[in-house]
Protein backbone atom coordinates (compact mmCIF):
# COMPACT_ATOMS: atom_id res chain seq x y z
CA UNK A 1 0.00 0.00 0.00
CA UNK A 2 1.30 3.46 -0.85
CA UNK A 3 -0.16 6.81 0.15
CA UNK A 4 0.62 10.51 0.12
CA UNK A 5 -0.92 13.85 0.88
CA UNK A 6 0.16 17.48 1.05
CA UNK A 7 -1.86 20.14 2.84
CA UNK A 8 -1.67 23.92 3.02
CA UNK A 9 -0.20 25.14 6.30
CA UNK A 10 -2.07 27.41 8.68
CA UNK A 11 0.38 30.30 8.23
CA UNK A 12 0.05 30.04 4.46
CA UNK A 13 -3.74 30.08 4.72
CA UNK A 14 -3.43 33.26 6.78
CA UNK A 15 -0.93 34.89 4.37
CA UNK A 16 -2.78 33.70 1.27
CA UNK A 17 0.26 31.75 0.05
CA UNK A 18 0.10 28.55 -2.01
CA UNK A 19 1.09 25.16 -0.64
CA UNK A 20 4.85 24.95 -1.16
CA UNK A 21 5.05 21.23 -0.37
CA UNK A 22 4.70 18.55 -3.01
CA UNK A 23 4.40 14.81 -2.59
CA UNK A 24 4.01 11.68 -4.71
CA UNK A 25 3.40 8.02 -3.96
CA UNK A 26 3.61 5.99 -7.15
CA UNK A 27 3.31 2.24 -7.54
CA UNK A 28 3.84 0.33 -10.76
CA UNK A 29 0.88 -1.78 -11.77
CA UNK A 30 3.23 -4.09 -13.64
CA UNK A 31 5.74 -5.11 -11.01
CA UNK A 32 4.77 -3.28 -7.82
CA UNK A 33 7.81 -0.96 -7.81
CA UNK A 34 7.32 2.02 -5.52
CA UNK A 35 8.49 5.63 -5.61
CA UNK A 36 7.81 8.10 -2.80
CA UNK A 37 8.73 11.76 -3.10
CA UNK A 38 8.33 14.64 -0.66
CA UNK A 39 9.54 18.16 -1.49
CA UNK A 40 9.30 21.22 0.72
CA UNK A 41 9.58 24.56 -1.04
CA UNK A 42 11.12 27.26 1.14
CA UNK A 43 8.77 29.66 2.85
CA UNK A 44 10.66 32.94 3.24
CA UNK A 45 9.65 35.84 1.04
CA UNK A 46 12.71 35.49 -1.21
CA UNK A 47 11.58 32.08 -2.45
CA UNK A 48 8.75 33.49 -4.53
CA UNK A 49 8.18 30.38 -6.66
CA UNK A 50 9.10 27.61 -4.27
CA UNK A 51 5.71 25.98 -4.87
CA UNK A 52 6.73 25.58 -8.52
CA UNK A 53 10.27 24.56 -7.55
CA UNK A 54 9.04 21.79 -5.27
CA UNK A 55 6.55 20.45 -7.81
CA UNK A 56 9.17 20.42 -10.56
CA UNK A 57 11.68 18.70 -8.27
CA UNK A 58 9.12 16.04 -7.37
CA UNK A 59 8.07 15.41 -10.95
CA UNK A 60 11.64 15.29 -12.22
CA UNK A 61 12.82 12.97 -9.43
CA UNK A 62 9.91 10.62 -10.10
CA UNK A 63 10.66 10.42 -13.82
CA UNK A 64 14.40 10.07 -13.25
CA UNK A 65 14.09 7.13 -10.87
CA UNK A 66 11.44 5.49 -13.03
CA UNK A 67 13.95 5.47 -15.90
CA UNK A 68 16.40 3.97 -13.45
CA UNK A 69 14.23 1.05 -12.41
CA UNK A 70 11.63 0.33 -15.07
CA UNK A 71 12.08 -1.98 -18.07
CA UNK A 72 12.39 -0.43 -21.50
CA UNK A 73 10.38 -2.77 -23.67
CA UNK A 74 11.57 -6.24 -22.78
CA UNK A 75 14.88 -5.07 -21.41
CA UNK A 76 15.07 -4.89 -17.65
CA UNK A 77 17.50 -2.36 -16.18
CA UNK A 78 20.74 -3.81 -14.95
CA UNK A 79 20.69 -4.32 -11.18
CA UNK A 80 24.12 -5.97 -10.89
CA UNK A 81 25.54 -2.71 -9.53
CA UNK A 82 23.46 -2.95 -6.36
CA UNK A 83 22.97 -6.70 -5.93
CA UNK A 84 24.17 -7.98 -2.56
CA UNK A 85 25.47 -4.56 -1.51
CA UNK A 86 24.16 -2.04 1.01
CA UNK A 87 25.31 1.36 2.21
CA UNK A 88 24.32 4.70 3.67
CA UNK A 89 26.26 7.87 2.98
CA UNK A 90 25.87 11.34 4.43
CA UNK A 91 26.40 14.65 2.62
CA UNK A 92 29.95 15.42 1.51
CA UNK A 93 32.12 18.51 1.51
CA UNK A 94 31.75 20.57 -1.65
CA UNK A 95 35.51 21.00 -1.84
CA UNK A 96 36.90 17.81 -3.38
CA UNK A 97 40.36 18.41 -1.92
CA UNK A 98 39.14 18.48 1.68
CA UNK A 99 36.45 15.82 1.20
CA UNK A 100 38.79 12.92 1.93
CA UNK A 101 41.21 14.73 4.23
CA UNK A 102 41.68 13.79 7.86
CA UNK A 103 43.15 17.17 8.70
CA UNK A 104 41.32 19.48 11.07
CA UNK A 105 40.16 22.68 9.36
CA UNK A 106 41.99 24.73 12.01
CA UNK A 107 44.01 24.25 15.19
CA UNK A 108 42.18 22.03 17.66
CA UNK A 109 41.92 24.76 20.30
CA UNK A 110 40.26 27.04 17.74
CA UNK A 111 37.68 24.51 16.53
CA UNK A 112 34.11 25.77 16.97
CA UNK A 113 31.02 23.60 17.45
CA UNK A 114 30.22 24.02 13.77
CA UNK A 115 33.76 23.02 12.80
CA UNK A 116 33.52 19.86 14.91
CA UNK A 117 30.11 18.90 13.52
CA UNK A 118 31.32 19.26 9.96
CA UNK A 119 34.62 17.55 10.65
CA UNK A 120 32.93 14.55 12.29
CA UNK A 121 30.54 14.34 9.36
CA UNK A 122 33.47 14.40 6.94
CA UNK A 123 35.03 11.43 8.73
CA UNK A 124 31.69 9.62 8.72
CA UNK A 125 31.40 10.20 4.99
CA UNK A 126 34.88 8.81 4.39
CA UNK A 127 34.02 5.64 6.28
CA UNK A 128 30.60 5.24 4.71
CA UNK A 129 31.69 5.63 1.11
CA UNK A 130 34.67 3.31 1.44
CA UNK A 131 34.06 0.13 -0.51
CA UNK A 132 31.03 1.39 -2.43
CA UNK A 133 32.70 3.78 -4.85
CA UNK A 134 30.99 2.17 -7.86
CA UNK A 135 27.52 2.64 -6.35
CA UNK A 136 28.50 6.12 -5.18
CA UNK A 137 29.41 7.14 -8.72
CA UNK A 138 26.06 5.90 -10.00
CA UNK A 139 24.16 7.83 -7.33
CA UNK A 140 26.17 10.97 -8.01
CA UNK A 141 25.27 10.68 -11.70
CA UNK A 142 21.59 10.30 -10.78
CA UNK A 143 21.67 13.35 -8.49
CA UNK A 144 23.48 15.44 -11.11
CA UNK A 145 20.91 14.44 -13.69
CA UNK A 146 18.00 15.38 -11.40
CA UNK A 147 19.60 18.71 -10.51
CA UNK A 148 20.40 19.63 -14.12
CA UNK A 149 16.88 18.78 -15.25
CA UNK A 150 15.45 20.80 -12.38
CA UNK A 151 17.63 23.79 -13.31
CA UNK A 152 16.47 23.51 -16.91
CA UNK A 153 12.84 23.27 -15.82
CA UNK A 154 12.92 26.31 -13.54
CA UNK A 155 14.57 28.41 -16.23
CA UNK A 156 11.91 27.28 -18.66
CA UNK A 157 9.25 28.26 -16.13
CA UNK A 158 10.85 31.68 -15.75
CA UNK A 159 10.87 32.15 -19.53
CA UNK A 160 7.29 31.03 -19.98
CA UNK A 161 5.99 32.94 -16.95
CA UNK A 162 8.11 36.09 -16.60
CA UNK A 163 8.55 37.29 -13.05
CA UNK A 164 6.19 40.04 -11.99
CA UNK A 165 7.46 43.28 -10.50
CA UNK A 166 6.37 42.07 -7.09
CA UNK A 167 8.20 38.77 -7.46
CA UNK A 168 11.35 40.55 -8.61
CA UNK A 169 11.12 42.90 -5.68
CA UNK A 170 10.83 40.00 -3.23
CA UNK A 171 13.65 38.09 -4.90
CA UNK A 172 15.88 41.16 -4.59
CA UNK A 173 19.50 40.66 -5.56
CA UNK A 174 19.30 36.88 -5.30
CA UNK A 175 19.79 34.64 -8.31
CA UNK A 176 16.77 33.21 -10.08
CA UNK A 177 17.41 29.74 -8.66
CA UNK A 178 16.63 31.04 -5.14
CA UNK A 179 13.07 31.79 -6.18
CA UNK A 180 12.45 28.06 -6.66
CA UNK A 181 14.31 26.74 -3.58
CA UNK A 182 13.18 23.36 -2.31
CA UNK A 183 14.22 20.22 -0.47
CA UNK A 184 13.81 16.77 -2.02
CA UNK A 185 13.52 13.31 -0.50
CA UNK A 186 12.86 10.15 -2.45
CA UNK A 187 12.43 6.48 -1.62
CA UNK A 188 12.53 3.85 -4.37
CA UNK A 189 11.75 0.16 -4.07
CA UNK A 190 11.76 -2.65 -6.60
CA UNK A 191 11.48 -6.37 -6.07
CA UNK A 192 15.29 -6.62 -5.99
CA UNK A 193 16.45 -3.60 -4.03
CA UNK A 194 15.58 -0.29 -2.48
CA UNK A 195 17.37 3.05 -2.36
CA UNK A 196 16.62 6.48 -0.95
CA UNK A 197 18.13 9.93 -1.22
CA UNK A 198 17.58 13.26 0.46
CA UNK A 199 18.71 16.88 0.26
CA UNK A 200 17.45 19.21 2.98
CA UNK A 201 15.27 18.70 6.03
CA UNK A 202 12.16 16.66 6.74
CA UNK A 203 12.37 13.04 7.92
CA UNK A 204 12.41 9.71 6.13
CA UNK A 205 11.99 6.80 8.55
CA UNK A 206 11.78 3.07 7.98
CA UNK A 207 10.24 0.42 10.22
CA UNK A 208 12.62 -2.48 10.72
CA UNK A 209 12.01 -6.14 11.57
CA UNK A 210 12.08 -5.28 15.31
CA UNK A 211 9.21 -2.86 14.78
CA UNK A 212 11.47 0.11 15.42
CA UNK A 213 11.59 3.28 13.37
CA UNK A 214 14.99 4.43 12.23
CA UNK A 215 16.36 7.10 9.97
CA UNK A 216 16.93 5.50 6.60
CA UNK A 217 19.34 8.11 5.18
CA UNK A 218 22.06 9.66 7.38
CA UNK A 219 21.39 13.20 8.56
CA UNK A 220 23.33 16.24 7.36
CA UNK A 221 24.57 18.51 10.16
CA UNK A 222 24.13 21.49 7.85
CA UNK A 223 20.38 21.12 8.30
CA UNK A 224 20.02 22.97 11.58
CA UNK A 225 16.79 24.35 13.02
CA UNK A 226 14.97 25.72 9.97
CA UNK A 227 18.21 26.18 8.07
CA UNK A 228 18.39 23.55 5.39
CA UNK A 229 20.37 22.44 2.39
CA UNK A 230 18.48 22.89 -0.83
CA UNK A 231 18.42 22.42 -4.57
CA UNK A 232 18.86 26.19 -4.78
CA UNK A 233 22.29 26.06 -3.11
CA UNK A 234 25.24 26.97 -5.33
CA UNK A 235 26.56 23.41 -5.60
CA UNK A 236 23.84 21.10 -4.29
CA UNK A 237 24.86 17.71 -5.72
CA UNK A 238 27.41 16.92 -2.95
CA UNK A 239 24.67 17.77 -0.44
CA UNK A 240 22.57 14.78 -1.45
CA UNK A 241 22.90 11.92 1.00
CA UNK A 242 21.58 8.45 0.33
CA UNK A 243 21.11 4.84 1.39
CA UNK A 244 20.56 1.62 -0.54
CA UNK A 245 20.16 -2.10 0.00
CA UNK A 246 20.45 -4.77 -2.66
CA UNK A 247 20.60 -7.72 -0.26
CA UNK A 248 16.90 -8.52 -0.48
CA UNK A 249 16.06 -7.01 2.90
CA UNK A 250 13.16 -4.57 2.84
CA UNK A 251 11.68 -2.30 5.49
CA UNK A 252 8.20 -3.14 6.74
CA UNK A 253 7.22 0.43 6.04
CA UNK A 254 8.78 3.73 5.00
CA UNK A 255 7.21 7.09 5.88
CA UNK A 256 8.58 10.40 4.57
CA UNK A 257 7.36 13.69 6.01
CA UNK A 258 8.18 17.35 5.54
CA UNK A 259 9.36 19.40 8.52
CA UNK A 260 5.85 20.79 8.96
CA UNK A 261 4.89 17.42 10.43
CA UNK A 262 8.25 16.68 12.06
CA UNK A 263 8.37 20.00 13.91
CA UNK A 264 4.88 19.42 15.27
CA UNK A 265 6.24 16.54 17.32
CA UNK A 266 9.11 18.32 19.07
CA UNK A 267 12.82 18.00 18.49
CA UNK A 268 13.65 14.75 16.68
CA UNK A 269 17.23 14.79 17.96
CA UNK A 270 16.11 15.04 21.59
CA UNK A 271 12.84 13.09 21.61
CA UNK A 272 12.54 10.96 18.44
CA UNK A 273 9.91 8.79 20.13
CA UNK A 274 7.32 11.53 19.59
CA UNK A 275 7.46 11.24 15.80
CA UNK A 276 7.93 7.47 16.03
CA UNK A 277 4.76 7.15 18.09
CA UNK A 278 2.85 9.25 15.61
CA UNK A 279 4.05 7.11 12.71
CA UNK A 280 3.27 3.90 14.61
CA UNK A 281 -0.24 5.10 15.37
CA UNK A 282 -0.79 6.09 11.77
CA UNK A 283 0.53 2.78 10.51
CA UNK A 284 -1.84 0.90 12.82
CA UNK A 285 -4.81 2.84 11.54
CA UNK A 286 -3.78 2.12 7.94
CA UNK A 287 -3.49 -1.58 8.70
CA UNK A 288 -6.74 -1.78 10.67
CA UNK A 289 -9.00 0.54 8.70
CA UNK A 290 -7.52 0.52 5.22
CA UNK A 291 -6.30 3.30 2.98
CA UNK A 292 -9.50 5.14 2.11
CA UNK A 293 -10.71 5.66 5.66
CA UNK A 294 -7.25 6.53 6.98
CA UNK A 295 -6.52 9.05 4.23
CA UNK A 296 -9.83 10.73 4.88
CA UNK A 297 -8.99 11.07 8.58
CA UNK A 298 -5.42 12.15 7.85
CA UNK A 299 -6.47 14.89 5.45
CA UNK A 300 -8.93 16.16 8.01
CA UNK A 301 -6.37 16.00 10.82
CA UNK A 302 -3.28 17.59 9.27
CA UNK A 303 -4.75 21.11 8.79
CA UNK A 304 -5.79 21.05 12.45
CA UNK A 305 -2.32 19.92 13.48
CA UNK A 306 -0.75 22.68 11.41
CA UNK A 307 -3.01 25.25 13.06
CA UNK A 308 -1.97 24.31 16.60
CA UNK A 309 1.61 23.22 15.99
CA UNK A 310 4.12 24.12 13.24
CA UNK A 311 1.73 26.30 11.13
CA UNK A 312 3.71 25.01 8.14
CA UNK A 313 2.61 23.13 5.03
CA UNK A 314 2.56 19.40 5.70
CA UNK A 315 3.36 16.45 3.48
CA UNK A 316 3.61 12.76 4.10
CA UNK A 317 4.18 9.85 1.72
CA UNK A 318 4.54 6.23 2.68
CA UNK A 319 4.68 2.61 1.69
CA UNK A 320 3.51 -0.25 3.88
CA UNK A 321 5.07 -3.52 2.77
CA UNK A 322 3.87 -5.85 5.49
CA UNK A 323 1.92 -8.75 4.10
CA UNK A 324 1.11 -7.51 0.64
CA UNK A 325 3.93 -6.03 -1.38
CA UNK A 326 6.30 -8.94 -1.74
CA UNK A 327 3.47 -11.44 -1.74
CA UNK A 328 2.12 -9.66 -4.82
CA UNK A 329 5.52 -9.74 -6.44
CA UNK A 330 5.84 -13.45 -5.83
CA UNK A 331 2.39 -14.11 -7.27
CA UNK A 332 3.20 -12.02 -10.31
CA UNK A 333 6.37 -13.94 -10.83
CA UNK A 334 4.52 -17.27 -10.60
CA UNK A 335 2.10 -16.24 -13.33
Amino acid at each position, binding site marked *: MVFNTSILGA*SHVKDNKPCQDYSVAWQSEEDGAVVLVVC*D*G*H*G*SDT*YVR*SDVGSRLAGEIALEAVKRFILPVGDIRPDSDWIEGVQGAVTARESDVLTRYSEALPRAEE*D*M*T*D*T*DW*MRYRQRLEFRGQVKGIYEQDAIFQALFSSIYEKWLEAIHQDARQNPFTEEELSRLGRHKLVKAY*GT*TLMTYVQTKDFWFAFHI*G*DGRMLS*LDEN*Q*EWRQIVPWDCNC*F*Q*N*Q*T*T*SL*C*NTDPVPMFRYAFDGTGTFPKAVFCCS*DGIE*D*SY*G*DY*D*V*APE*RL*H*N*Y*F*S*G*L*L*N*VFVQEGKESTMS*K*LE*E*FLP*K*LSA*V*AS*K*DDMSIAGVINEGDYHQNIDEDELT
Partner: protein
Amino acid sequence: MEKNNPFELDAVPRRVMPLIFLVDTSGSMDGAKIASLNVAVQESLKDVGEISKNNSDAQIKVAVLEFSSGTQWMYPQPIESESFKWQDLQASGLTSLGAAYSELNEKLSKSHGFMAEPTGSRAPAIILLTDGQPTDDYKHPLEKLKGNPWFKAGVKVAIAIGDADTNVNILAEFTGNKEAVLTVHNVDQLKKIIKTVSVTASQVASQSASVGVSGNGSTTPADAQSQVVSSVTNAVDTDDALKNVDQGDSTANSGTDDWENW
Protein backbone atom coordinates in the same frame (compact mmCIF):
# COMPACT_ATOMS: atom_id res chain seq x y z
CA MET B 1 5.71 -0.62 18.37
CA GLU B 2 3.55 1.59 20.57
CA LYS B 3 -0.13 1.94 19.68
CA ASN B 4 -1.73 5.35 19.98
CA ASN B 5 -4.26 7.61 18.34
CA PRO B 6 -2.43 9.52 15.60
CA PHE B 7 -5.30 11.96 15.24
CA GLU B 8 -5.10 13.23 18.82
CA LEU B 9 -4.31 16.94 19.15
CA ASP B 10 -4.12 17.26 22.94
CA ALA B 11 -0.42 16.88 23.48
CA VAL B 12 0.94 19.35 20.93
CA PRO B 13 3.94 20.97 22.63
CA ARG B 14 5.26 24.51 22.50
CA ARG B 15 8.89 25.06 21.57
CA VAL B 16 11.15 26.79 24.06
CA MET B 17 12.93 30.09 23.44
CA PRO B 18 15.71 30.78 25.96
CA LEU B 19 16.08 34.42 27.01
CA ILE B 20 19.63 34.68 28.32
CA PHE B 21 21.02 37.61 30.30
CA LEU B 22 24.80 37.96 30.54
CA VAL B 23 25.29 40.34 33.45
CA ASP B 24 28.55 42.05 34.33
CA THR B 25 28.83 41.94 38.14
CA SER B 26 32.35 43.35 38.34
CA GLY B 27 33.27 45.86 41.04
CA SER B 28 32.54 48.87 38.86
CA MET B 29 28.88 47.81 38.68
CA ASP B 30 28.51 48.23 42.45
CA GLY B 31 25.99 50.75 43.71
CA ALA B 32 23.36 52.35 41.46
CA LYS B 33 24.12 50.25 38.41
CA ILE B 34 23.65 46.81 39.89
CA ALA B 35 20.80 47.96 42.14
CA SER B 36 18.79 49.39 39.27
CA LEU B 37 19.66 46.42 37.06
CA ASN B 38 18.27 44.09 39.72
CA VAL B 39 15.01 46.01 39.81
CA ALA B 40 14.73 46.48 36.06
CA VAL B 41 15.28 42.89 35.00
CA GLN B 42 12.92 41.66 37.67
CA GLU B 43 10.20 44.00 36.45
CA SER B 44 10.85 43.13 32.80
CA LEU B 45 10.41 39.46 33.54
CA LYS B 46 6.78 40.08 34.46
CA ASP B 47 6.16 41.34 30.93
CA VAL B 48 8.21 38.53 29.41
CA GLY B 49 6.12 36.07 31.41
CA GLU B 50 2.95 37.55 29.91
CA ILE B 51 4.38 37.26 26.40
CA SER B 52 5.25 33.64 27.05
CA LYS B 53 1.84 32.86 28.52
CA ASN B 54 0.04 34.33 25.53
CA ASN B 55 2.29 32.82 22.86
CA SER B 56 0.84 29.59 21.51
CA ASP B 57 4.00 28.81 19.52
CA ALA B 58 6.77 29.13 22.06
CA GLN B 59 7.38 29.22 25.77
CA ILE B 60 10.07 31.59 27.04
CA LYS B 61 12.55 30.30 29.60
CA VAL B 62 15.03 32.59 31.32
CA ALA B 63 18.68 32.02 32.22
CA VAL B 64 21.06 34.48 33.86
CA LEU B 65 24.84 34.27 33.75
CA GLU B 66 26.75 36.68 35.96
CA PHE B 67 30.40 37.28 35.26
CA SER B 68 33.03 39.10 37.31
CA SER B 69 36.26 37.35 38.34
CA GLY B 70 34.53 34.14 37.27
CA THR B 71 31.11 33.11 36.00
CA GLN B 72 28.00 31.72 37.66
CA TRP B 73 24.52 30.82 36.44
CA MET B 74 21.72 32.06 38.67
CA TYR B 75 20.04 28.65 38.18
CA PRO B 76 21.56 25.58 36.56
CA GLN B 77 18.82 25.35 33.92
CA PRO B 78 16.59 27.95 32.23
CA ILE B 79 13.33 28.48 34.11
CA GLU B 80 9.86 29.35 32.78
CA SER B 81 9.64 33.13 32.67
CA GLU B 82 6.28 33.12 34.46
CA SER B 83 7.79 31.48 37.54
CA PHE B 84 11.33 32.87 37.41
CA LYS B 85 12.46 34.19 40.82
CA TRP B 86 15.15 36.82 40.38
CA GLN B 87 17.95 36.71 42.95
CA ASP B 88 19.52 40.11 43.53
CA LEU B 89 23.06 40.23 42.17
CA GLN B 90 26.01 41.71 44.05
CA ALA B 91 28.96 43.34 42.29
CA SER B 92 32.68 42.86 42.92
CA GLY B 93 35.78 41.63 41.10
CA LEU B 94 37.00 41.76 37.51
CA THR B 95 35.24 41.65 34.12
CA SER B 96 35.79 38.16 32.73
CA LEU B 97 33.82 38.57 29.53
CA GLY B 98 35.84 35.89 27.76
CA ALA B 99 34.95 33.40 30.48
CA ALA B 100 31.29 34.35 30.08
CA TYR B 101 31.48 33.73 26.33
CA SER B 102 33.04 30.31 26.94
CA GLU B 103 30.37 29.40 29.46
CA LEU B 104 27.60 30.55 27.14
CA ASN B 105 29.11 28.52 24.31
CA GLU B 106 29.02 25.41 26.54
CA LYS B 107 25.34 25.85 27.27
CA LEU B 108 24.21 26.57 23.72
CA SER B 109 24.19 22.88 22.95
CA LYS B 110 21.70 20.04 22.72
CA SER B 111 24.08 17.42 24.05
CA HIS B 112 25.28 19.17 27.21
CA GLY B 113 23.42 22.45 27.49
CA PHE B 114 20.17 24.35 27.48
CA MET B 115 18.93 23.43 24.03
CA ALA B 116 17.91 19.83 24.71
CA GLU B 117 14.20 20.55 25.04
CA PRO B 118 12.11 17.55 23.97
CA THR B 119 9.54 19.91 22.52
CA GLY B 120 12.25 21.63 20.50
CA SER B 121 14.17 24.86 21.00
CA ARG B 122 13.98 28.15 19.22
CA ALA B 123 17.21 30.13 18.76
CA PRO B 124 17.88 32.19 21.90
CA ALA B 125 17.65 35.89 22.61
CA ILE B 126 20.82 37.00 24.41
CA ILE B 127 21.20 40.31 26.22
CA LEU B 128 24.64 41.42 27.41
CA LEU B 129 24.80 44.06 30.14
CA THR B 130 28.19 45.51 31.03
CA ASP B 131 29.86 48.72 32.15
CA GLY B 132 33.48 47.96 31.43
CA GLN B 133 36.07 46.50 29.18
CA PRO B 134 37.01 42.84 29.46
CA THR B 135 39.87 42.03 31.79
CA ASP B 136 40.50 38.63 30.20
CA ASP B 137 41.04 37.39 26.64
CA TYR B 138 37.57 37.68 25.12
CA LYS B 139 38.50 37.41 21.44
CA HIS B 140 39.31 33.72 21.29
CA PRO B 141 36.20 32.62 23.24
CA LEU B 142 34.09 34.96 21.10
CA GLU B 143 35.43 33.42 17.89
CA LYS B 144 34.43 29.99 19.18
CA LEU B 145 31.05 31.30 20.28
CA LYS B 146 30.48 32.73 16.83
CA GLY B 147 30.94 29.23 15.45
CA ASN B 148 28.09 27.96 17.61
CA PRO B 149 25.01 27.52 15.37
CA TRP B 150 22.60 28.49 18.16
CA PHE B 151 24.51 31.72 18.77
CA LYS B 152 24.61 32.47 15.06
CA ALA B 153 20.85 31.98 14.79
CA GLY B 154 20.06 33.94 17.97
CA VAL B 155 19.13 37.57 18.61
CA LYS B 156 21.95 39.49 20.32
CA VAL B 157 21.72 42.89 22.00
CA ALA B 158 24.31 44.61 24.19
CA ILE B 159 23.60 47.34 26.73
CA ALA B 160 26.61 49.46 27.66
CA ILE B 161 26.03 50.90 31.12
CA GLY B 162 27.72 54.29 30.94
CA ASP B 163 30.28 55.42 28.39
CA ALA B 164 33.22 55.98 30.70
CA ASP B 165 34.78 52.54 30.27
CA THR B 166 32.67 50.63 27.77
CA ASN B 167 33.75 50.10 24.20
CA VAL B 168 31.04 49.97 21.55
CA ASN B 169 33.33 48.15 19.14
CA ILE B 170 33.95 45.32 21.57
CA LEU B 171 30.23 44.91 22.20
CA ALA B 172 29.45 45.12 18.47
CA GLU B 173 31.72 42.12 17.96
CA PHE B 174 29.28 40.24 20.16
CA THR B 175 26.04 41.50 18.59
CA GLY B 176 27.29 41.41 15.01
CA ASN B 177 26.24 44.98 14.32
CA LYS B 178 26.70 48.32 16.07
CA GLU B 179 23.02 49.24 15.98
CA ALA B 180 22.37 46.45 18.49
CA VAL B 181 24.64 48.18 21.02
CA LEU B 182 22.87 50.70 23.24
CA THR B 183 24.67 52.99 25.65
CA VAL B 184 22.72 54.31 28.64
CA HIS B 185 23.83 57.11 30.90
CA ASN B 186 21.64 56.96 34.01
CA VAL B 187 19.47 54.69 36.09
CA ASP B 188 16.19 55.67 34.47
CA GLN B 189 17.53 54.93 30.99
CA LEU B 190 18.98 51.64 32.19
CA LYS B 191 15.67 50.49 33.65
CA LYS B 192 13.74 51.53 30.59
CA ILE B 193 16.12 50.03 28.04
CA ILE B 194 16.31 46.69 29.87
CA LYS B 195 12.55 46.45 29.72
CA THR B 196 12.35 47.56 26.08
CA VAL B 197 15.06 45.18 24.91
CA SER B 198 13.84 42.22 26.98
CA VAL B 199 10.29 42.54 25.76
CA THR B 200 11.20 43.21 22.11
CA ALA B 201 13.75 40.41 21.90
CA SER B 202 11.31 38.01 23.55
CA GLN B 203 8.51 38.93 21.19
CA VAL B 204 10.59 38.59 18.03
CA ALA B 205 12.67 35.56 18.94
CA SER B 206 9.74 33.56 20.27
CA GLN B 207 7.75 34.10 17.10
CA SER B 208 10.40 33.76 14.44
CA ALA B 209 11.43 30.43 12.97
CA SER B 210 15.14 31.29 13.07
CA VAL B 211 16.06 30.16 9.63
CA GLY B 212 19.30 30.68 7.76
CA VAL B 213 20.40 31.70 4.33
CA SER B 214 18.89 28.58 2.88
CA GLY B 215 16.12 28.39 5.38
CA ASN B 216 12.57 27.38 4.63
CA GLY B 217 10.73 29.18 7.37
CA SER B 218 9.38 32.66 7.54
CA THR B 219 12.16 34.63 9.23
CA THR B 220 15.92 34.47 8.88
CA PRO B 221 18.26 35.11 11.84
CA ALA B 222 19.27 38.32 10.14
CA ASP B 223 15.60 39.25 9.92
CA ALA B 224 15.04 38.54 13.61
CA GLN B 225 18.08 40.57 14.60
CA SER B 226 17.10 43.45 12.34
CA GLN B 227 13.50 43.34 13.59
CA VAL B 228 14.73 43.74 17.15
CA VAL B 229 17.14 46.53 16.18
CA SER B 230 14.41 48.27 14.22
CA SER B 231 11.94 48.09 17.13
CA VAL B 232 14.53 49.30 19.62
CA THR B 233 15.60 52.13 17.27
CA ASN B 234 12.00 53.16 17.01
CA ALA B 235 11.66 53.14 20.79
CA VAL B 236 14.83 55.23 21.19
CA ASP B 237 13.53 57.72 18.62
CA THR B 238 10.04 58.08 20.00
CA ASP B 239 10.16 57.38 23.75
CA ASP B 240 11.11 60.44 25.78
CA ALA B 241 12.58 58.26 28.49
CA LEU B 242 15.06 56.83 25.95
CA LYS B 243 15.88 59.93 23.92
CA ASN B 244 19.32 60.30 25.47
CA VAL B 245 20.33 56.69 24.88
CA ASP B 246 23.15 56.39 22.34
CA GLN B 247 22.75 53.73 19.70
CA GLY B 248 25.73 52.24 17.89
CA ASP B 249 28.44 54.79 17.14
CA SER B 250 26.42 57.73 18.41
CA THR B 251 28.22 59.83 20.99
CA ALA B 252 25.55 62.52 21.14
CA ASN B 253 25.08 61.99 24.87
CA SER B 254 28.63 61.07 25.72
CA GLY B 255 29.79 62.53 29.01
CA THR B 256 26.31 62.75 30.51
CA ASP B 257 26.74 59.75 32.78
CA ASP B 258 24.99 60.20 36.11
CA TRP B 259 25.03 57.17 38.37
CA GLU B 260 24.72 59.07 41.65
CA ASN B 261 21.10 60.28 41.55
CA TRP B 262 18.89 57.24 42.03
